[in-house]
Structures are given as C-alpha cells and as structure tokens.
C-alpha cells in the first residue's frame, strides 16, 4: 500500500517539474523523426575523377555508365593522375579511375586491360565500398574479363538494403538508454542535493519499497516511450517488426529494468549531479560502443569480444534485430532473454543494497 503512495509521489514530482514531462514526450518524437535520416551509413555521392588516356568509344561508354550509377557523382575529367591526386588532397574528390591507353584496343582484341582505381581510404568504409562499386561497374563493362562465373547473391531479410530498417532497432535501444538511464541517475542524487532524502530516511518505508517506487515510474515511462517509437516507425517510415510484437516489448522492458537500476546505483554512489552525469555518461558510452550497435560485434578483437558476454546492450541489440528484422520467434532469442533477465535482477538487487538509509 505504501508502495502505491510512493509511486504516486514520484509521478507528482515528475509532473510538477517544468522540464521533464516535455522531455519525456518530445525526446522520442524528435529522435525518431530526425535520426533515421542522419544515420544513413550507406555510401552515396562518391565523387569520381576520370583520367582517360584512351579516348575511345569503349572508354567513353565506361565513363557514361559510371555517371549513370546512383552511387557516384562525376567530378569531371583530369589530364593526369597527379592533377587528380591534387584534387583528392584538397578534399574535392574521393576516387580516381585511370583508364589505360589501349583500353579500347585491348577489349577489341579480347585481352584484359588493366584499370587503376585509387581511393581515398582515410574513411575505410567509404574507400572500400566506393572502390568495390566502381570495380563492379568496370568489370561489367569489359565482356571478356569475366571468364570465371561469379556466384549469384541472395540477400535475406533486408532485401532493399534499407539502412533505416537496420537502424530503427538501434534507435529504440538509444532512446531507452537515455530515458530510463539518465533520468533515474539524476533522481536520488537530486533528492540528496535538495535535502528531501532526509525526510524519506526517517520514515518506516523499507529499502525495497523505496527503490521499487523509484523504478516503477521509469518502467511505465519506458512502456510509453517504446509505444511512441514503434508507432512513429510505422507511421513515418512504414517499418513494422517482422517478429511478434510482444517479444519486442519484453526485450525493451528487460533493458529498461537494467538501465533504471544502473542509473539508481550511480545515483546512490554520487554526491553531486555533475558527478553522477559524468560517471553515467562514461559507462553508457562504453556499453554502447562495445555492444555492436553501430559496428559489427564480431569484427572486434577477442579480448573486446569477451566483454560482450556481460554487456546487456549486446544481448538486447542482437535479440531485437533478430526479432525486428529477421522475424525470429521466442526460441531463437531465448538465451538473450535469459541473460537480460539475470543481469536485470542482479542490478536491481544491487540498487536496493547500495541505498543506505543512514548517512
């Protein structure tokens, strides 16, 4: 019964703050409207310079097919390789294609010509993807060169290579992390700074009831936020989960249990808001970067991959992508659900233990 009043108190506190209710409503909306446009990691608009030493019909046909591709923008022709490199150094172009002198003649004779592609690889992904697309176009333009049969490719699940579909589960994770992670972090330390924690400490409320009353509002907020995010993904981008909806909710709630408990733990150990925020930020950045949210977890070196076994974000993102994109059922993500549950229970009991009524 006391729990009900305590939860009521928390909600009143959140509602009477002039800033928090607006943040809770606006934040997921803004993130879902803007971020999928920002997080386009597909390689587009690569500027290509062509050094054409041949000037034959086949070389001109090659240049035209590059200009027609949606990945490339033509940066024009350059007389020499050196002048093209100077443009790359100035940041005006990304890739140089050098067509050799006898390009057309070699093709007519049925010999394989040697084309040079030089890519600016400071950004490794852009360099390798850009040059891979370019070499595909070049190989297609030379009919004799493809002697060996290339294997055909069947892409599963994300057939249109839509980057938004890949990123929306990650956005769910980020929104959950910021909303249910940072708000509890500021909560108890805020009560400490304003001194109202003293009043709670002298009441007969048990530690369990107190911490639980701090956690429940954030779980409800998480439920609200996840619904908003899923609705917006459906309305704006037409993207819906391929797997069962209840699994998406289950996973999101388990993540909320972890992050809200973690936020309270940091809050319990901190003395000032600034400290709490910096400590939380530090952990959140590490958890996020090492989870495989933006980069594939499997490319990490072994010692870094070991950390993913205790990283709840890794289990979450793995499972939610299986459910959301690949249409996985419960038994495909059972082991991630168990791991998240175990980590969540552990953190919640730590949150209760770390709260001390006597200072």
């Amino acid at each position: 019964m006391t729990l009900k009043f305590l939860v009521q108190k928390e909600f009143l506190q959140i509602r009477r703050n002039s800033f928090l209710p607006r943040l809770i409503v606006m934040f997921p909306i803004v993130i879902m409207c803007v971020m999928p446009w920002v997080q386009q990691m597909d390689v587009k608009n690569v500027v290509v310079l062509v050094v054409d030493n041949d000037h034959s019909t086949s070389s001109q046909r090659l240049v035209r097919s590059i200009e027609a591709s949606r990945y490339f923008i033509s940066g024009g022709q350059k007389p020499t390789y050196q002048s093209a490199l100077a443009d790359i150094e100035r940041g005006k172009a990304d890739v140089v294609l050098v067509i050799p002198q006898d390009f057309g003649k070699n093709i007519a004779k049925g010999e394989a010509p040697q084309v040079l592609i030089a890519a600016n690889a400071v950004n490794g992904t852009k360099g390798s993807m850009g040059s891979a697309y370019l070499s595909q176009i070049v190989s297609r333009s030379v009919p004799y060169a493809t002697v060996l049969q290339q294997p055909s490719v069947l892409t599963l699940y994300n057939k249109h290579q839509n980057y938004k579909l890949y990123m929306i589960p990650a956005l769910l994770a980020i929104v959950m992390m910021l909303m249910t992670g940072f708000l509890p972090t500021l909560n108890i330390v805020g009560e400490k700074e304003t001194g109202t924690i003293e009043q709670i400490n002298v009441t007969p409320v048990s530690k369990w009831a107190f911490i639980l009353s701090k956690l429940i509002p954030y779980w409800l907020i998480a439920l609200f936020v996840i619904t908003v995010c899923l609705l917006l993904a459906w309305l704006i981008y037409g993207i819906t989960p391929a797997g069962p909806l209840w699994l998406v909710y289950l996973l999101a709630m388990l993540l909320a249990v972890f992050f809200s408990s973690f936020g309270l733990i940091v809050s319990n150990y901190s003395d000032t808001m600034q400290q709490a925020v910096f400590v939380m930020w530090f952990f959140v950045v590490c958890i996020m970067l090492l989870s495989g949210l933006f980069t594939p977890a499997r490319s990490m070196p072994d010692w870094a991959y070991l950390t993913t076994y205790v990283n709840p974000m890794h289990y979450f993102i793995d499972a939610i992508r299986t459910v959301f994109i690949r249409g996985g059922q419960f038994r495909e993500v059972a082991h991630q659900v168990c791991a998240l549950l175990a980590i969540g229970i552990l953190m919640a009991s730590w949150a209760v233990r770390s709260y001390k009524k006597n200072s």
Partner: protein
Amino acid sequence: MKQFISFVIKETRHILRDRRTMLILFGMPVVMMTIFGFAITTDVKNVRTVVVTSQIDHLTQAAVERLAQSEYFTITKTVSTPQEAERLIRSQKADMAVVFAKNHSMQLIVDGADPNMAQQWTSYAQQTIVNGKSSIVNLKMLYNPQMKSSYNFVPAIMGMLLMLICAMMTSISIVREKERGTMEVLLVSPVRPLLVIIAKAVPYLALAFGILITILLMARFLLGVPLQGSVVWILTVSTLYIILALSLGLLVSSVAQTQLVALLLSAMVLLMPVIMLSGMIFPVESMPTVLQWIAAVVPPRYYIDAMRKLMIMGVGIGEVMKEVAILASFATFFLIVALKKFNVRLE
C-alpha cells in the same frame, strides 16, 4: 598580475579536488582511444559461413578451402539444404551461406540485416572464390592501405573530447559559481570581471592541451596512426579550435542560470550535433539536403576535416586554408558575442 595568477590557482584547485570528475576527464580519452583504436572496427573478419552441398566434389572442395583459408571467413557447418542454412542465419548462428547446386552454379545467401556489411561480405566472398585471377582492376587504397578504422576515428575523437572539455566543463564551472552564490564574491573583488572569466578558462585551456598531447601520443605510439603533416600546424589549428570551444562555453554560461540547464544545453546543443552531424560516424554526404545545411554550421566538422587532412593525408597547410578560415571566423564571431553578452552585474 599577481591577483590573476592567484585566481588561476584557485580554479586549478577546484578542478583537482573533484577526484571523480578528474578521473573521468583523464580516463575518458584513454578509454575512448583504446576502444576506438582496437575494439571498434568495421573490418570484415570471422564471418561465420555455412556450406550447403549435397555431394562434395573437387570443385566445391577447392572453393570451400579457399574460403576457409582466408582470414575473413570461418566455415562453421556443412548442411544439405538451403532451408537449414536459412534457419541457422535467422537464429544468428551464421552470417552467410554458400550454396553449391547440382549444376555447379554457386549462390551466396547472406544475412542482409546490416546492408553495408552484407555488401562487403559478398564482395569479399566473390573475390575469394574467384581468386582474383580474372581481375582487371588494380585497387590502390591511398593514405590508409591497411584500411584501419582508427585513421578515421582519431581526428573525430579529438574534435569531440576537446569540445566536451572546453565548452561543457567551462560553462558548468562558471554557472556553478552563479548557482552557489560565490560569483557575487568574485565580482566584488578588486580583480576586473573579465579577468575573472579568463582566469577560469586558463586551467581548462591547459587541461585541453594536456588531453590533446595525450591523444596525439597514444595515436602515434599505441595505435600506429601516422602523423604525416607538420606537428606545428596540427597544434596551431587545434589551438584555434580550443579557443572556439572555450568561447562557446563562455556563451553557454552567460545564457544558463543553473547547472542542469548548462549541462543539458551543452549536451544537446554542442555534443549531440558533434557526434551526429560532424561526419564522425555517419557520412554527411548521405544525409538529406536540409541536414547537410545544418551540418555546415557545426564548427567541429571543419576541425575534424582539417585534422584528417593534416594528420593522415599529410597535406600542407595550403590545402586546409578553407577549413582554417571558417574555424577562425567562427571563433571570432563566438568570442565577440560571448564578450558582448558577458554581464558584469548579476541580475
């Protein structure tokens, strides 16, 4: 002058006595550099591959061996039907399947959830299976022949951390004095108000330089990122950027009245755009035009661009004149606005 120095000492003590924040401030660059330098890679590695074949002959054997020998792929299982392979991919036990049909045609089935990686896996697999014999293309990767991700990340981390330390920390420390009421005491002291603020910025300037040097040393000796360009110019451009960030911090502190507002302002207005719109993780060219316009007024973007050119590509200062000019005009603008807005009196 003596008064000024004692103010600087006071501010330094403020920083040094908050142990936890200090730890985070110096721990952050080290941890970030380690994570970005070693752990975060987009390299193709350990792609779990399933072989789908009903009978094994010498042709399939040769192709499978070529895949297994390459460092990119690990053969995890051999199954007999494509359906089984798809089930393995769906439950995240495999990333790719190579199907050998009866008529010797080959098909790659790939998990397309991550479009970029799917594209790279297939192009690597095709190259490996065909064995590059018929290739007519000579590829040359300029400036970063081993395709290390850290070449791309180090300049970005510099841009982010310097902004974090200079802008966020300075603004919070000034606003904290307002909130606690100690600003009043400082303003009635015989030191000129402007000097009070400059004295506040000096320790953070030193801190920023310390972190800049740490990052550069770690990049050079731990991650093996080359410093191709001249170190003098790298430091000069960085100084310009630090001044820019400090004046931004000053601006935030004159707008914000409480620590929480200063924190949120610098996090939302300064930090988020830096991470999202500066081309650090997500390429600016792929964004819609409206976002590209917004990205054009995010100053760290120009700093990160300039650093990439100076550090990694090793071009002369002449090639980055545009970025330096933009940074300089941003810095003058923010400095003038911040000084104009700076109030000698408390409201």
